[in-house]
């Protein structure tokens, strides 16, 4: 009986391994794009004062983060098999850790949004929506960068540089947002909420940019 169950678990393991480790990384990279998109949709819904949409996209972001966690566990489980070479394991580990960190930050943004219902301030909402448009671009670019690092260093390098350029726009929007916020001087809880929110969004995008920089470093290491 025990022998049979062991045999079954081995079969299951083999079946699981039919998915290439490469595909796990691609799936994890796609989760970054999905999580950032959901995060942006949550912010847009907040700006439109659509609470049911806020709840819906918040839950989807949290769900994506959980799925990314499962993927991370699968990657780690297979990291020390013969699928990878010893020298590239720290770099693969770095990639999977960074993917998880960016998605974690996106989850943090939606959790923050769910913690308080602020007053609607149209000037700030416009800036927030503008921020989400750029964030979505960064999410897509980061996904492409991660996928390309496995197949085309030149393309990955170009994409990583693009992320760096776009991130500057977010930084500018962050300062504009803060200037406007302190000029409007809303109630203290609203001020605190909006101040925190823009900072967490900026941190998420900073994490994405930091990740892109790290990928540039990997490319330098491997490309002769």
């Amino acid at each position, binding site marked *: 009986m025990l022998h049979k169950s062991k045999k079954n678990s081995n079969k299951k393991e083999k079946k699981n391994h039919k998915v290439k480790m490469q595909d796990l990384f691609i799936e994890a990279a796609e989760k970054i794009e999905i999580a950032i998109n959901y995060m942006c949709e949550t912010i847009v819904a907040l700006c439109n004062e659509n609470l049911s949409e806020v709840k819906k996209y918040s839950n989807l972001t949290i769900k994506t983060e959980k799925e990314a966690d499962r993927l991370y566990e699968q990657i780690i489980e297979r990291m020390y098999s013969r699928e990878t070479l010893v020298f590239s394991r720290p770099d693969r580990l770095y990639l999977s850790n960074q993917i998880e960190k960016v998605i974690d930050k996106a989850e943090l943004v939606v959790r923050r949004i769910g913690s308080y219902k602020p007053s609607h301030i149209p000037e700030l909402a416009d800036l927030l929506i503008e921020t989400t448009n750029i964030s979505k671009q960064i999410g897509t670019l980061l996904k492409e960068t991660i996928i390309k690092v496995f197949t085309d260093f030149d393309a990955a390098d170009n994409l990583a540089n693009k992320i760096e350029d776009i991130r500057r726009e977010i930084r500018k929007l962050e300062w504009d947002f803060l200037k406007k916020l302190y000029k409007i001087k809303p109630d203290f809880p609203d001020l605190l909420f909006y101040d925190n929110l823009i900072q967490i969004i900026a941190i998420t995008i900073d994490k994405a940019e930091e990740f892109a920089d790290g990928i540039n470093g990997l490319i330098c290491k*491997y490309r002769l």
Partner: protein
Amino acid sequence: MDLVVLILIILAVVLAFGIGANDETMANVVSSGSLKLKYAVLFGGVLAFLGCLFLSANVGKTIGKSLLGSEVSYNSFMMMAILLSTSFWLIISSKTSVPISTTHSVVGSVFGISFVWAIATGQNYFLSINWIKMGEVAIGWVLSPILGFCGAIIAQLIITRFMKYRSSGLIQVEKTEKFFQYIILAFVCINQISRGGNDSANALGIIYGLIKSGDIAQDIEVILIIIVGFMLMAGLIIIGKNVIENIGTTAGKMRPSDSLAAEISASLIIFGATVFGFPVSGSHILIFALIGSARMKGITPDKKSFRRMVSSWFLTFPVAAILSAVIYTSLLFLV
């Protein structure tokens, strides 16, 4: 069989075990992930045994009596002094983790006993050494690391060019590196067989000397070679795994392409030297080859470790000569 001859054979066999125990050839296979340690050690042991069986004869005969002048009568005490001084210096060096060449120790010991022989018999010292043979050996010592260095530079140049075309993405890089793992395995086989032949000759040289002097019957030559080969294999399997594991894990993050150039250069030179009967130091060649490939990649070796290693290489020869001279003098006084 004489008791002294029996002691000499036992000492030669023990020396073979020690040589096997200090063999680090398979370290690259372990560090590049081509083989697991336990398989690498077993595989290396079998290859060293084969090398001893088929490739040791030429080098062994060079290391034996032929290094001494024609006037010198090669006797059992001389052999015992060579074996004891080499084994003693090997143990001291291993204890202090200083890598030395067994070949340098053996030849240094021959110098020591020839010096004592010249004083004891009142003969001219220059007659006690076969300078032509010694010159050939010395040229081999100097040339082999230089060739190892140059060979590694050329090999690294070719590998770098090849890698440039094969490094479009991480998957491609890994595929190429996996391919290099197998090439390393092939060159390590050549290297291990050659080193088995070249290094075991240090122990077999004494046995060839005993056969030539008639102390051992020609009939048991093959049996003795098998025993020496077996001890070489046993040394590598029982103790050698520590050296291999130590070097293999130190270089744990090495890419196969990093060590391939050095491995190609070292294995071809050691193989050539073994086939043509030149006793060379495998460690010296490998280290110079590693330096060559590192220089080609723009990496400077650690100066402190390099200085320590080179000074130990220079020390080996005089220390072994002094030790063998002291042991041989003591044996002459005792008997």
